[in-house]
C-alpha cells in the first residue's frame, strides 16, 4: 500500500469539496474492491475520502419505487423486509453477493460505480432500467453503464441513490464462481409494463448487456420453453480460466430459463 491521506467526509457536499481540493482523491464506499486494489499497489490515490460517516446516504425507501441510498450495504438490502415483500429478486440478489464480509461492508453505490463486469448489481439496474442519482443529475441505467469498469460518472461525481421501478415479475439467477461468488454468468429477467428486459452480467467483455433475442421471445410468451431453441453468440463474451466464451454463452440461456421459471 502506498501512502495516502485519509479524509472523513461529513456530508455529500463535504465529500465533493474534499475531492475537488485533492490532487488525485478517490471516494471510499465499502472498500471491498478499492482496498484490495490499494493493498496490491495497483492504485495510488493522494486522498481516500471515506463516505461511511454520511448517514443520509444509507437508507431504504419503498413506495412507488424502491429507493436505496448509495452507502446501503448488500446485507441491509438482503435483510430488508420491505424489499423482500415488494421485489424479492433484489433482496435475493444482494444475499448472493460475495461472502458475509463483502455483504456487510460492500455498498450498492460502490458496486454500481465500479461496474465490475462480474458484479451482480449492474444486472438488476439494467434489467429494471433503474434511475441512478448523483450529486449533479439523474441518469437511467441504459445511459449509465459504458463498458468494463466504465460508467457515465464524471471525475468527482458521486452516486447518492438508486431507484428501482417495481416490475410485474422478476428473478435473478447466477452461476457463481465457487471461490469468489462473483457471477460467471448472472441473468436478471424482469417483466415490466413496457415489456420484458433481460440483463446479463459476468459474461460480456464490455460488462453488463441486454440479451435482445431472449427479450423478443419472452415478449411473445413469458415461459422458459420459449427460450428452448435460442442461443447467444459467444463473440464478445469473456474467456478466462474459469470458463471460455462458448460455455458462458450456453450458461446465459440456461440461467435465463431458470430466472423465468423462478419469476413465473
Amino acid at each position, binding site marked *: 500500500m502506498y501512502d495516502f491521506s485519509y479524509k472523513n467526509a461529513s456530508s455529500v457536499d463535504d465529500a465533493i469539496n474534499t475531492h475537488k481540493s485533492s490532487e488525485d482523491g478517490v471516494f471510499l464506499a465499502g472498500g471491498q474492491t478499492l482496498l484490495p486494489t490499494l493493498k496490491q499497489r495497483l492504485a495510488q490515490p493522494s486522498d481516500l475520502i471515506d463516505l461511511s460517516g454520511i448517514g443520509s446516504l444509507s437508507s431504504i425507501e419503498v413506495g412507488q419505487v424502491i429507493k436505496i441510498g448509495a452507502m446501503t450495504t448488500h446485507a441491509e438490502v438482503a435483510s430488508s423486509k420491505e424489499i423482500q415483500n415488494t421485489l424479492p429478486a433484489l433482496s435475493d440478489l444482494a444475499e448472493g453477493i460475495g461472502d458475509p464480509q463483502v455483504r456487510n461492508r460492500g455498498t450498492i453505490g460502490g458496486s454500481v460505480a465500479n461496474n465490475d463486469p462480474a458484479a451482480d448489481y449492474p444486472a438488476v439496474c439494467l434489467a429494471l432500467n433503474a434511475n441512478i442519482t448523483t450529486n449533479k443529475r439523474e441518469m437511467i441505467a441504459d445511459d449509465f453503464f459504458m463498458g468494463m469498469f466504465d460508467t457515465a460518472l464524471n471525475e468527482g461525481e458521486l452516486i447518492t441513490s438508486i431507484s428501482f421501478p417495481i416490475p410485474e415479475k422478476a428473478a435473478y439467477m447466477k452461476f457463481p464462481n465457487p471461490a469468489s461468488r462473483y457471477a460467471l454468468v448472472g441473468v436478471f429477467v424482469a417483466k415490466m409494463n413496457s415489456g420484458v428486459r433481460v440483463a446479463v452480467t459476468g459474461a460480456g467483455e464490455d460488462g453488463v448487456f441486454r440479451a435482445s433475442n431472449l427479450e423478443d421471445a419472452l415478449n411473445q410468451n413469458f415461459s422458459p420453453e420459449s427460450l428452448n431453441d435460442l442461443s447467444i453468440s459467444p463473440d464478445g463474451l469473456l474467456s478466462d480460466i474459469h470458463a471460455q466464451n462458448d*460455455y458462458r454463452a450456453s450458461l446465459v440461456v440456461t440461467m435465463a430459463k431458470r430466472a423465468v421459471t423462478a419469476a413465473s
Partner: protein
Amino acid sequence: MRRLIQVLERVRNELGINGSELKGVGEVGAIGLPLAVKNAIVDKLSDLRASDVSVPAPPAKVWNAIKAAKTAG
C-alpha cells in the same frame, strides 16, 4: 470406498462425537474421495461415451467433455 465409508461410520457410531463435532480421518486415507467423485462424473457421462474427465473437474471441463462427446456423435 466401501471400506472408507465403513470406517467413517464406525468412527461416528462407536466413538461418538466430541464437543467440536469433528473427527480426524487422516489415517483412513481420504484420497479415496476425489477418485469417487471423478468416477461418479465419468459414470454420469457414460451414456454420451464421453472421454475420461480428469480431476479437478470444474463445471467448464465437464461441459467441454459433454460438448466434445456430442460433436463426436
